[in-house]
C-alpha cells in the first residue's frame, strides 16, 4: 500500500528479523522439503522452489510470509530499511511441472464433512491457496459449500500440533509406535477389546485397513459416531426395506418435495449435492418443483420453501402421521385410526393433495432422528411410489454411517473397563457427546487411548497419545460418498508439521512394513476399483486419469433389486399418537421445546477454529462469532425480551446461558439453538465463542434427537451485543428484491427488460469488453459459499466480533436477507449484494484523487495506492458495498486471526494486493482472474471465450445463481440473461446504470384454502 513505502518497510524488516530468529532454523525448511519432493523428486530436498521471491513484490505481508520461509528479508534486517534488499533464491534443480508464479490445480476430495465433495485445489508456488469444486463430478458439480471453501485456511492453523504427544508431552513417533504396539499386543492377549472410534468413514481403502484390523484382532471393534447422526433413519430403513442404509436422493427429479425438519440445503447429509439438484429442479422457465417445509426454526431450506409451515418439534411425528393418514386413505390402505391434526388441517390437506397428485415423482424427507417418524416417512414414500424413482436404496449414500446405540454401548463398555485400547479418529465426544462426563469417566478407565486429532481439543487433551493426522491437503486418500461414486485425494503440499496420516499409523500398528499409505491406497485401487471398471486397459493410465480427474464412477456390482416393503408402520403411527398425547398432557405454556441444529459454517463444531467460518454470518440470523437462541417475536414480546438478552435454558438435567435472537417464522413454543459453538479447547480464534448446546439434547430409545422438551426459560438480566451483519430485515416497501409469480411468468409474453433510463451524458467510447454479471434471485439459496470463496480469493481480512458489532465487516459480497409478510409466518429472500460496477458510478464522481474510475471494460476499479481514505465514495454508494480498512488488519496484534500469524498468511493470494489501513476496497469482479484469463488467451494466441473467466463467487455457487461474462459478446450467457423477462437492476432509478443485473425471484405459492 502506499504508506508501506514510508512505514511498511521498517515494520516488515523488524518482523522479518524476529521471525528469522524464531522460525527459520527448523520449520522453514520443513515447509519446502517435500514440496520439492512433490515437485522435483527427492534430490532437490532442502531447497526453495525457484523464483518465488518475486512474489515478494506483492505486499508487505506477502513479503513477510516469505520471510517466514527464511530467506527473502534475511538481508533486509541488516541492510537497514531505506531500500530493503530483496533476495531471490531459485531452485538448484529445475522442474518441468513447476513454473514459479504459475498456479497448478490438483483434483482432490474434501474432508470438511463426510459428504466428501470432489474438489480442485489451487497450488501457487508450492502453497495451496484456494479450493474450488470439481466440475467433473456428476454428484456435486463445480459447487462447494462455505465450509469447504474455508478448508484451505485450516491447513494453516497455528493450533495444529507440530508432532505427536505422549501424556501431553512432545514425543517421537518411534516411542509412540512402540507403546501402541505393546498395548495392542496385550489387548490381543485378551485383556479387553481394541476399539476404533471414528466419525463416518467412507474411504474404501481406510475401511480395508479397518477390516484388516478386524481380521487380525478378534477383539477389535469399529464404532462410527456422528455428532449429528442419521442412525434412526438407518434403523427405520432396516425395518422398512431390510437395508440399514441412508438412501441417495434425487431432488432434481422430484416435482414435490416435503421436508420435515431436514435442512438439506444447509447442513443435512450432503448440502452441496442437494442444493445443486434442488436448483436444477426449480428452474422457473420450465416446470419447477414445489417445496413444502415443516420446521420449528427458520433454516436455509425453510427460507427457500414455497410453503413453510412452522411446527413444534413434538408435532413433526404427528404431522408425518397425519399426512400418512391422508395418503393412506387415498391409497386405500386401511387401519389408521383418526389422528388429531397438530396443525391447520387445510394446510395438511393441501400438502397431501400435492403429494398425491405427483405420485412417483414426489419426495418426503425427514431429518428427525426418531425411528417411528422415519418409518412413517418411509411408508409415505412407499405409498407414493417414490422408492426407486426419487429415492435410491440400491446406490445408498455413505455420508452418514454413525450409529448412536453403538456409541452409547461403547461408552458403557469403557466405563465397565472392557476397552483396552481406544483409537479415536475424527471424533470429539468430550465436546459433542450428550453426556461428556460419562464419556470422560470411561476414557479414564481405558489403559491406552490414542487420538488422531490435529490439535489438543476437549477429547485429545485427555488421552495418552495424540498422533496428529495430516490435513487432507497434505494427505493421500479416497472416498466413496455415494455407492459406486469414488474419488481420490492427493497432497498439494508436504506436511507442514511432523504429522502422520492416521491410515499410515493404523497400518504401522498392524505391522505393515513399510507402512506407506500411498502404496496401500494404490494397491487397493488396483485390486478393487481398477478391476471393476472397463475402458482403461492398464492400471497406470487408469490411476493417472483417476488422479487427474479426481473421481471414478463404477457400474453397480449387483443389478438393482427393488427392495421389499415390510415393517409395521401402524405400530409406528400408534406410538407417535401416544407420544403426542403424552406430550399434550405434560405440555404447558411456560414449557418450551428446544430445536438444536447444525450450524451452517461450523457444522458439528469441528471447524470452530477457522476464523473465516466464525465470521461468516449465519445465512438466516446474520449473526457471526457465536450462537444464540432463536425465539419467536410473539414469545419475545410475551417475555419482554429483546435481541441479546441472555437467558438460561434449563432441561431436567442440564442448562445453558445464551443470548436470544428474535427470529421471524420461529415456532412460538420452540427455541432453536445452533450446535457447533462453545468449544473450550480448540484454539485462539474459536475458544469459548458461543455456547455448547450438545448437553441439552434428548436421547429417545437410544437415538440422539437434536431436540429437547420441557425446557424452561429464565432471564438472567444480563445482555450481550450480538455481532450481526444486518440489523434491518424489512425492505420498507422499496423495490430492492423484485418478485413475480409463476403464472405471471408463464402467461406474460412481454419481454421484461424495460428500456434503460435516459442518461444526461453522451455515451463514452466503448472498450474491448464490457464485463457484467447476472444474479438469479430464484436460484440463490443463501448458502453463503460465495462469501467465503470471495474472502479466500481476494485476501479479505477477518476483523473479529468487536469490529462486526461496530458494523465493520470486510466481506466484499454480502448476502442480504429480507423478510416480507407476517412476522410469525414470513417469506424470506436472499440477495447477494456486491459492487454493482455502475457505469455512472456515484462513488467515482466524488473521489477527489481519481482513486476509483471506470475502466475501458466497464469495471469500477479501485486503486488502493491512490486512495487517501476520505470515505466519500462509501457515503455516496447507494448499495453500501464499499469497505474501508479502519485499521491495519494484517500483522496487527489487535486482530489476532490468520493474517496476524505468519503461518496463516500463507493462504494469501499473491495476485491480489493486501490492503493496508486507511484504504477503501470493494468487489473488483476478480479482476486478477480477468487479467489472467486474458494472459492465457494471449499465450494460446486465441480470443477470450465465454466461460474462460469465472469469478470466485460464481465458481463456488452450487446453484450457478451467479453468471459473469462479457455483455458485448451477444452469445455469452450473461448477455443472453439480459433479455430474460425476469431481469432487473437494483436502484436503477437512481441512474447508476449497474453492470450487475438480477433475475426476479419467482413465487409459486401453495393454495392452502
Amino acid at each position, binding site marked *: 500500500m502506499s504508506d508501506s513505502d514510508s512505514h511498511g518497510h521498517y515494520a516488515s524488516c523488524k518482523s522479518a528479523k524476529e521471525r528469522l530468529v524464531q522460525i527459520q532454523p527448523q520449520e522453514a525448511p520443513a515447509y519446502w522439503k517435500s514440496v520439492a519432493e512433490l515437485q522435483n523428486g527427492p534430490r532437490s530436498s532442502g531447497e526453495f522452489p525457484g523464483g518465488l521471491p518475486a512474489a515478494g513484490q506483492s505486499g508487505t505481508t506477502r513479503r513477510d510470509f516469505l520471510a517466514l520461509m527464511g530467506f527473502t528479508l534475511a538481508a533486509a534486517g541488516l541492510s537497514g530499511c531505506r531500500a530493503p534488499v530483496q533476495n531471490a533464491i531459485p531452485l538448484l534443480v529445475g522442474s518441468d511441472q513447476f513454473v514459479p508464479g504459475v498456479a497448478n490445480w490438483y483434483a482432490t476430495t474434501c474432508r470438511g464433512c463426510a459428504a466428501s465433495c470432489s474438489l480442485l485445489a489451487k497450488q501457487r508456488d508450492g502453497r495451496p491457496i484456494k479450493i474450488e469444486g470439481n466440475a467433473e463430478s456428476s454428484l456435486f458439480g463445480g459447487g462447494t459449500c462455505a465450509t469447504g471453501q474455508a478448508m484451505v485456511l485450516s491447513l494453516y492453523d497455528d493450533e495444529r500440533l507440530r508432532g505427536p504427544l505422549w501424556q501431553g508431552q512432545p514425543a517421537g513417533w518411534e516411542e509412540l509406535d512402540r507403546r501402541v504396539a505393546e498395548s495392542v499386543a496385550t489387548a490381543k492377549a485378551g485383556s479387553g477389546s481394541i476399539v476404533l472410534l471414528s466419525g463416518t468413514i467412507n474411504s474404501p481403502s481406510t475401511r480395508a485397513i479397518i477390516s484388516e484390523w478386524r481380521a487380525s484382532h478378534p477383539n477389535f471393534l469399529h464404532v462410527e459416531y456422528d455428532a449429528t447422526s442419521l442412525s434412526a433413519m438407518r434403523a427405520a430403513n432396516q425395518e422398512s426395506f431390510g437395508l440399514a442404509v441412508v438412501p441417495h436422493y434425487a431432488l432434481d427429479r422430484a416435482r414435490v418435495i416435503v421436508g420435515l425438519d431436514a435442512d438439506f440445503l444447509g447442513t443435512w447429509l450432503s448440502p452441496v449435492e442437494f442444493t445443486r439438484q434442488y436448483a436444477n429442479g426449480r428452474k422457473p422457465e420450465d416446470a419447477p418443483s414445489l417445496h413444502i417445509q415443516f420446521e420449528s426454526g427458520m433454516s436455509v431450506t425453510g427460507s427457500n420453501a414455497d410453503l413453510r409451515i412452522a411446527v413444534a418439534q413434538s408435532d413433526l411425528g404427528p404431522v408425518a402421521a397425519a399426512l400418512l393418514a391422508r395418503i393412506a386413505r387415498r391409497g386405500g390402505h386401511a387401519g389408521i385410526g383418526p389422528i388429531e391434526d397438530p396443525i391447520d388441517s387445510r394446510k395438511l390437506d393441501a400438502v397431501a393433495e400435492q403429494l398425491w397428485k405427483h405420485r412417483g415423482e414426489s419426495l418426503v424427507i425427514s431429518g428427525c432422528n426418531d425411528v417411528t417418524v422415519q418409518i412413517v416417512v418411509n411408508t409415505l414414500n412407499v405409498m407414493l411410489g417414490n422408492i426407486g424413482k426419487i429415492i435410491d436404496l440400491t446406490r445408498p449414500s455413505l455420508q452418514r454411517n454413525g450409529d448412536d446405540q453403538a456409541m452409547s454401548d461403547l461408552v458403557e463398555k469403557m466405563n465397565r473397563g472392557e476397552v483396552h485400547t481406544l483409537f479415536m479418529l475424527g471424533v470429539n465426544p468430550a465436546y459433542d457427546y450428550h453426556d461428556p462426563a460419562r464419556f470422560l469417566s470411561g476414557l479414564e478407565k481405558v489403559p491406552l487411548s490414542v487420538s488422531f486429532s490435529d490439535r489438543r481439543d476437549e477429547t485429545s487433551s485427555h488421552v495418552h497419545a495424540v498422533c496428529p493426522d495430516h490435513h487432507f491437503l497434505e494427505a493421500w486418500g479416497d472416498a466413496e460418498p455415494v455407492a459406486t461414486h469414488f474419488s481420490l485425494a492427493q497432497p498439494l503440499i508436504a506436511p507442514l508439521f511432523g504429522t502422520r496420516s492416521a491410515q499410515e499409523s493404523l497400518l504401522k500398528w498392524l505391522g505393515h512394513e513399510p507402512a506407506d499409505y500411498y502404496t496401500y491406497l494404490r494397491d487397493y485401487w488396483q485390486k478393487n476399483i481398477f478391476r471393476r471398471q472397463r475402458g482403461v486397459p492398464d492400471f497406470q493410465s487408469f490411476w493417472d486419469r483417476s488422479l487427474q480427474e479426481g473421481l471414478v464412477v463404477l457400474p453397480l456390482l449387483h443389478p438393482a433389486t427393488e427392495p421389499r416393503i415390510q415393517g409395521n408402520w401402524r405400530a409406528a403411527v400408534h406410538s407417535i399418537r401416544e407420544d403426542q398425547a403424552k406430550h399434550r398432557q405434560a405440555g404447558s405454556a411456560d414449557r418450551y421445546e428446544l430445536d438444536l441444529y447444525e450450524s451452517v459454517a461450523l457444522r458439528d463444531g469441528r471447524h470452530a477454529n477457522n476464523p473465516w467460518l466464525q465470521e461468516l454470518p449465519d445465512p438466516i440470523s446474520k449473526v457471526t462469532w457465536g450462537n444464540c437462541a432463536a425465539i419467536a417475536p410473539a414469545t419475545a414480546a410475551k417475555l419482554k425480551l429483546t435481541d441479546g438478552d441472555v437467558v438460561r435454558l434449563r432441561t431436567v438435567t442440564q442448562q445453558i446461558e445464551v443470548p436470544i435472537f428474535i427470529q421471524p417464522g420461529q415456532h412460538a413454543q420452540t427455541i432453536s439453538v445452533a450446535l457447533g459453538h462453545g468449544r473450550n479447547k480448540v484454539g485462539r480464534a474459536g475458544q469459548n465463542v458461543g455456547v455448547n448446546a450438545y448437553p441439552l439434547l434428548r436421547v429417545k430409545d437410544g437415538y440422539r434427537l437434536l431436540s429437547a422438551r420441557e425446557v424452561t426459560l429464565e432471564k438472567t438480566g444480563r445482555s450481550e451485543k450480538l455481532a450481526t451483519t444486518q440489523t434491518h430485515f424489512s425492505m420498507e416497501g422499496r423495490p430492492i428484491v423484485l418478485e413475480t409469480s409463476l403464472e405471471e411468468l408463464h402467461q406474460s409474453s412481454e419481454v421484461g427488460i424495460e428500456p434503460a433510463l435516459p*442518461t444526461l451524458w453522451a455515451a*463514452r467510447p466503448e472498450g474491448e469488453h464490457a464485463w457484467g454479471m447476472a444474479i438469479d434471485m430464484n436460484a440463490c439459496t443463501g448458502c453463503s459459499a460465495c462469501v467465503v470463496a470471495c474472502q479466500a480469493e481476494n485476501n479479505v481480512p477477518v476483523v473479529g466480533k468487536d469490529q462486526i458489532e461496530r458494523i465493520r465487516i470486510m466481506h466484499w459480497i454480502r448476502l442480504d436477507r429480507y423478510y416480507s409478510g407476517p412476522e410469525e409466518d414470513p417469506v424470506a429472500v436472499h440477495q447477494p449484494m456486491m459492487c454493482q460496477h*455502475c457505469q455512472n458510478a456515484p*462513488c*467515482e464522481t466524488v473521489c477527489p484523487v481519481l482513486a476509483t474510475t471506470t475502466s*475501458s471494460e466497464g469495471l469500477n476499479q479501485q486503486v488502493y495506492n491512490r486512495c487517501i481514505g476520505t470515505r466519500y465514495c462509501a457515503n455516496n454508494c447507494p448499495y453500501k458495498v464499499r469497505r474501508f480498512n479502519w485499521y491495519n488488519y494484517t500483522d496487527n496484534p489487535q486482530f489476532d486471526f490468520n493474517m496476524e500469524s505468519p503461518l496463516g498468511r500463507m493462504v494469501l493470494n499473491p495476485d491480489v494486493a493486501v490492503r493496508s489501513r486507511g484504504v477503501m476496497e470493494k468487489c473488483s469482479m476478480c479482476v486478477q482472474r480477468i487479467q489472467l484469463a486474458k494472459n492465457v488467451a494471449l499465450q494460446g494466441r486465441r480470443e477470450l471465450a465465454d466461460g474462460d473467466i469465472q469469478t470466485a463467487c460464481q465458481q463456488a455457487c452450487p446453484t450457478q445463481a451467479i453468471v459473469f461474462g462479457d455483455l458485448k459478446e451477444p452469445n455469452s450467457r450473461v448477455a443472453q440473461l439480459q433479455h430474460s423477462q425476469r431481469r432487473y437492476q437494483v436502484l436503477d432509478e437512481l441512474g447508476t446504470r449497474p453492470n450487475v443485473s438480477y433475475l426476479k425471484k419467482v413465487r409459486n405459492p401453495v393454495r392452502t384454502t
Partner: protein
Amino acid sequence: MSDKFLVATFTDTEALLAAVRAVRQDSFRIYDVYAPYPVHDLDHAMGVKRSRLPWVTFVVGVLALGFALTFQFYTSVLDWPLNVGGKPDNSSLAFVPICFELTVLLSGLATVAALFLRARLYPGKKAPKFADDITNDAFALVLRWRENDFDALRARRILEQSGADRIREKEASS
C-alpha cells in the same frame, strides 16, 4: 542624502484641513500629511488622486480566471481523460467553483502585494518620523524645504494662522 523639511503638528483635524487648504492655495507643494487615521476630505484637500490599484485586482483576476479554466480543462480533458462516473471529460460546470476561488485568491493577493510595492511597505523598513504621536493622536503637515525656492517664513505664517500647535524644521533622509 538628507533633506530639510518644515513640519507642522496639529491636534485638531479641522485645523489640519484648514492648513492644508491654505498651504496649497499659496502654491506650496505638500510633501505629505501624517495622521493616526484616514482623515476624511483630506485626500480632496491635498489633491491626492484616487489610487489605480483596483486595476491590478481586475487584470490579475482575469488572468487567474483564464489560468484556472485552462488548467482544469487541460488536466481533465486533454492530458489524461479518465472515465469518472460516466461524466463527460469536459464537465465544465464542475470547474466553476475552482475558477472562482483561484480568481479571488490570486487577485486579492496581487492587490495587497501591489499596495506594499507602491507604498513601499516591507518588513524592517524604518518609518520616517516627522513628529511624535503620529500613530497615536497627532497630525503632521510636512513641507519639503528646498534651498533657494522655499519661502520658509511665509510657510510658517500660513501654518500658524491655520492653527498649528508646533512648527519645526527637520532633517530627514527621504
